[in-house]
């Protein structure tokens, strides 16, 4: 409960910060004007700041241009990417049709956009209370498959990464160096591996009857995320002084207490980074998912890919873009919420040259 409240207040704080940003900006401008007027800062000094800021802004705009462009495309009429009149489609034609399609017709939330609602059934066969979707004939859509996969990936990933990182960081044991070395070697081999070993994977999974199983796929993603994230978290934990653990021990905390009360809270920025990376590992992958799953179990990533290749010779761009934007939304939210932690968590104390 308190976790929910904490989360809510956290979100509120973020929103307030975001909402008051323009106001803070205004104050900043006022101050600059005041400072120039009273001679506290020279005009040139202020100009330099303004120019630098503008330069930064320009850079951001250039870098984000593709996404901006495709977003305007998602608002356009029709399905084509190009229009002969210029880079951006005619603003008068902007509409939310594509988004409406994603929400109410695609398989994004519910199959064929046939929305339902969750319902608890009392006294069903499978126990006292069971859960089902009501109001929909086709059932929940790709989003739920994606969330299910990501949940498995996150739970399994964290369950294995965190203890392992802790052990690597704090303990000595046989094979420690060798395994860690192996992990580092494999951090990147994992990335391209999926295409290379696609067939091998398929035969492996089908031999054991594990195809079309979201749970197993989630595990697979967790496995692929293990080396890099374990190593990352280990580097982070290395920078946490051992004395906190010792203090806890002297305070009478058991090993598990120490982990829960001390190690995990202190590792939060590292965990935030791992959260993002592990999440992305399960969220974005589509090649293996498509090979191993049957259509009713497709996650969003595969659906997105399928939209890209839907036409015989062309992509229905507006829908594709709208779908992708909604697809990226959860990641963006998670990232914005955790930005500070992520920036902290990626500083490698041990990396200084």
């Amino acid at each position, binding site marked *: 409960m308190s976790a929910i409240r904490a989360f809510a207040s956290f979100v509120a704080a973020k929103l307030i910060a975001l909402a008051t940003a323009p106001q803070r900006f205004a104050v900043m401008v006022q101050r600059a004007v005041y400072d120039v007027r009273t001679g506290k800062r020279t005009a040139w000094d202020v100009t330099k700041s303004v120019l630098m800021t503008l330069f930064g802004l320009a850079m951001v705009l250039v870098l984000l241009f593709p996404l901006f462009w495709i977003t305007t495309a998602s608002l356009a009429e*029709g*399905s*084509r*990417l*190009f*229009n*002969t*009149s210029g880079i951006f489609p005619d603003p008068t034609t902007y509409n939310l049709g594509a988004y409406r399609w994603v929400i109410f017709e695609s398989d994004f939330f519910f*199959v064929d956009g046939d929305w339902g609602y969750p319902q608890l059934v009392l006294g069903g066969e499978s126990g006292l209370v069971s*859960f*089902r*979707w009501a109001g929909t004939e086709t*059932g*929940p859509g790709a989003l*739920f*498959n994606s969330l*299910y996969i990501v949940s498995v990936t996150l739970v399994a990933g964290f369950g294995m990464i965190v203890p392992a990182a802790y052990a690597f960081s704090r303990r000595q044991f046989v094979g420690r160096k060798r395994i860690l070395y192996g992990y580092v070697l494999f951090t990147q081999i994992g990335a391209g591996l999926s295409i290379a070993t*696609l*067939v091998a994977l*398929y*035969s492996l999974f*089908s031999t054991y*009857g*594990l*195809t*079309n*199983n*979201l*749970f197993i796929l989630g595990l697979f993603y967790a496995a692929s995320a293990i080396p890099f994230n374990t190593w990352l978290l280990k580097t982070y934990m290395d920078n946490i002084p051992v004395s906190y653990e010792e203090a806890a021990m002297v305070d009478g905390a058991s090993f598990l207490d120490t982990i829960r009360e001390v190690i995990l809270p202190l590792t939060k920025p590292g965990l935030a980074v791992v959260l993002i990376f592990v999440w992305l590992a399960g969220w974005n992958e589509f090649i293996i998912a*498509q*090979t191993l*799953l*049957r*259509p*009713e*179990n*497709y996650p969003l990533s*595969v*659906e997105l*890919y*399928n939209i890209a*290749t*839907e*036409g*015989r*010779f*062309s*992509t229905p761009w507006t829908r594709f873009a709208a779908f992708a934007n909604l697809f990226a939304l959860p990641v963006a939210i998670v990232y914005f919420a955790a930005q500070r932690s992520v920036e902290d968590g990626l500083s490698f104390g041990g990396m200084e040259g």
Partner: protein
Amino acid sequence: ISTGGDGSDGSDGSDGSDASDGSDGSDGGSGGTARLWVDLSDAEDEAITGYIDQYESESGNTINKEAPGGELDQQLETAIPAGDGPDSWIWAHDWVGRFAVREDPPFLYDASDDVDVSLDSYTETARQAAQFDGSLYGLPFASETVALFYNEDMVDEPPETMEEMVSIMDEHHDPENGQYGLSYPVTDPYFVSGFIQAYGGNIFDEEELEVTVDSDACKRGMDALETLSEYVPSDPGYESQIVAFADGLAPFAINGPWELGNLQGEIDNLGVTTLPTVDGNNPRSYSGIQLFYFSAMLADAEQSTVDATTGLAEWYTTNEDVIQTNAEEQGYIPVLADVVNNDDLSNEVQAFAQQVDHGVPIPTHPDMDSVWTPVTEALERVFNDEQDSDAALDQAASEIREAL
């Protein structure tokens, strides 16, 4: 949390090599269950869903239609050997040869003994397309090829000859100002096959199993194609081409019936006609015949599954209503002899049908797989002025021969 709809019910069907799984056994003893894979556009998908419902209620069979997405053949490549493939799928006939020769494991199922309809109900080309080495691997329901789209606002009279077409194109072609003569993906062999083969040459001689793309006839055809290439936007990609026509910046497009719906939405007065004649020869464009394939999964399946599969194919390919409606709504060119011969079809569909008549089916022989890439690359080289057309075709031919 189990949400009922996702993982839990999929997993029970994933463990066996038994292809006929997925049946809950809930719907009566007589009905069989079959799995069908499709890769269709939204409109097509919607239409076929309706027909399948209709078939299910008429026959008592259950059809599980799935759209695995991505590249269908890749999906089949992995699924069938693993015993996890569909019982049937819909695709153009050009995979027949390539899959028919596969052994260890086989990919297709010879349904000669299970099919009740007479093959004579289909047009000659369609009939041939569904067979390979005397075995029947599917049933045809439509054909497609490329024909000439024109914008009636820019073209008074549809051209019948290359010369006429060129003179109209000349009127409009002005790349400096974003005006073009033609929208045509000129590096795609399927799209350009008609002109290359216009003089009677064949890209691939299926009878003799010879690569004949470097024949004189093909080279002459290539010249005609080069003429047209002058008038297209400089990006030969499909999407870049079609937009010029769709935005009303080109009088002509050469494209297939699948664009009919889209283009009708964008061009007020759209016309379709057969490809213009070259020196009096009708371009012999490749045509594809849409088939219900019979998958090797059927070999080990229960008879009810086989019946459900062939039943659907028979019903769908011979139901005149279906064929007629598809022709009107989807631009499917009928291959059911009875429908082809009546006159109820729209002008557009008739134009395509006529072009199919002039054309040749894509050879189904597995060696065709080695043809596409070298030819595409040759076309690209020519289009980019890296090579002249004769040399490009010679090179393509030798590359293909090497690969075989």
